[in-house]
Each structure stands twice: as structure tokens, then as C-alpha cells.
């Protein structure tokens, strides 16, 4: 089946909505290409996003527990930075996890499935380790971890399960193909025509 992978109508692309086309343009914005150009940069972006996620959640939980008003200021800054980092990850992966399936081609769908499978294993391992810590704390008579309400354990678990595919997709992204000679050819022809 032909997959519509450009914002222009092609094959089944007639089914692409205005939202699909707008999201396709946003996710394929060339502005984030430099940030995702090498494996080192991709690791840095993913690490920064994971750190920002942990910092934002910690700040939120502290605000909830201590009810300290001044924590709103760092939380607002962290949220803005987190949104920017999330945008970079989505742009770097070309919207692998944000675009609808009909806007992805066969290679992208395979990449998304691969990221999902690895993320499932990673999130399972993370949750198993967290569960192990709680069980161990009970076993040694620490009476659980009284400072951590169950609701926050669930929030952290939700964040891990929600964001792990994005992190894995970011780490699995490959280098962009080298510049296309034919693009240069066409640019030159267009310049000559203009």
C-alpha cells in the first residue's frame, strides 16, 4: 500500500488532513538537523531531556508536598526548557512518535516498532528495579518508603512509560544522508532560470 509521506497529495495522501500536513511540516523542519547530526549530539539531547524530565517531576512533587510558592518560578522555567527539548527530540526523529501512521513510510514504521519494542523492555526493567527497591525496603523493615506517596510513584512510572519510546527513538536515529548533489543541481537550474 502506498503511504502518503509528503504533505502533497500522493496515493492515499488524499486522506491526509490539514492537521496531518501541518504536523508533517513542523516535524520535518530543517532547523533541528544540526542538533541531531551526530550520535554524540543525539545522546546529549536525549540525556538533557531525561534530566529535565526528572528535574521537572521533582520540582512538581516538592511543590505538592511542601507547598512552597517560590518553587513555581523554577518549575515554569523547567517546563519551558522541557517543551523545547521535547520539540527537538520530535523534530530530530522526524515525528516518528507524533505523526499519525498514515504519514509515515515503511522504514519509519519499522523504526517506530523497533523503538517501541526496545522502550517496552527498558521501561519494564526500570519499573522492575523500582519495585525491587520498594520490596527490599519492606523486607529490611523500613516500612516502605514513607516519604514517597503512591501517587508520585505512579506519576514517575507514567512518565517513564510515556517518554521511553521517544528517548529510544532519539538514540536509535541515524545520521542524515549526505547532501544531495541533485538538490544543488536543481538549485543552480532554478537560479539560472530566475
Amino acid at each position: 500500500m502506498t503511504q502518503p509521506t509528503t504533505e502533497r497529495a500522493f496515493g492515499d495522501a488524499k486522506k491526509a488532513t490539514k492537521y496531518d500536513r501541518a504536523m508533517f511540516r513542523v516535524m520535518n523542519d530543517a532547523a533541528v538537523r544540526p542538533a541531531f547530526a551526530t550520535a554524540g549530539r543525539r545522546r546529549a539531547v536525549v540525556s538533557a531531556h531525561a534530566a529535565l524530565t526528572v528535574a521537572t517531576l521533582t520540582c512538581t512533587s516538592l511543590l505538592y508536598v511542601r507547598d512552597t510558592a517560590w518553587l513555581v518560578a523554577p518549575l515554569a522555567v523547567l517546563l519551558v526548557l522541557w517543551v523545547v527539548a521535547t520539540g527537538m527530540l520530535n523534530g530530530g526523529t522526524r515525528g516518528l512518535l507524533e505523526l499519525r501512521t498514515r504519514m509515515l513510510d515503511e522504514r519509519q514504521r519499522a523504526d517506530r516498532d523497533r523503538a517501541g519494542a526496545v522502550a517496552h523492555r527498558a521501561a519494564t526493567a526500570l519499573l522492575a528495579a523500582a519495585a525491587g527497591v520498594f520490596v527490599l525496603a519492606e523486607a529490611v523493615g523500613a516500612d516502605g518508603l514513607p516519604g514517597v506517596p503512591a501517587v508520585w510513584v505512579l506519576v514517575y512510572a507514567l512518565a517513564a512509560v510515556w517518554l521511553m519510546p521517544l528517548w529510544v527513538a532519539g538514540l536509535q536515529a541515524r545520521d542524515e544522508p549526505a547532501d544531495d548533489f541533485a538538490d544543488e543541481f536543481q538549485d543552480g537550474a532554478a537560479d539560472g532560470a530566475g
Partner: protein
Amino acid sequence: MYNFLYMSEQVHNRLAVIRAERSVSRKQLAEAVGAHYQTIGHIERGQYNPSLDLALRIAEYFELPVEVLFALRPFRPLSDELYGPQGHGNQRDRQDSADRGAR
């Protein structure tokens, strides 16, 4: 990493050569066959093996048999195919190549 999950065999291709010959950009080809332009780049670099469906669409776009573009074994250099591995001195190979070209 994790390539073994979806790439069991290396499929060789001469997509970049044919594209250069026809002056077709990755984006043009991608739009014509319904793929992302990055996918065309990954195919050219041997990082992704296209499905039969996509391979046939690419072959159809260039109006070439699919085996001219994709093969399980590495392609011989085009100069070898045109003039033979002995180079310009071998008149018989040149004649054979000309015959193949005419066909």
C-alpha cells in the same frame, strides 16, 4: 545496533548511480514513490532494505527492471559492464557490451 531485528540480508543497489545519471533528487524520488526522502538515503547507504513493493515502485519510476537497481550480490562497476573487465583493449568484450546496449 539492533539492525539484526529487521535486516537479515544485505541487498545491494545502484540507486545513487541511477539517480545521478537521471539528475533526480532524493526528494523528487521520495515524493514519486511515496517514501520519506531520508528513506531513499538509507536505502542508498545500505542501511535499509526496501520492501518488494517499494523496490518495484522505484524501478517503475526509473522505467528499469528491478534487478538493474537491486541485487543480492554486489554490482560490477558500470564501466566493466559496458567495456568488460579487460578494459579498452578487448575488442570482443566491447562488441558484446555494444550488443547488450542495443538489446
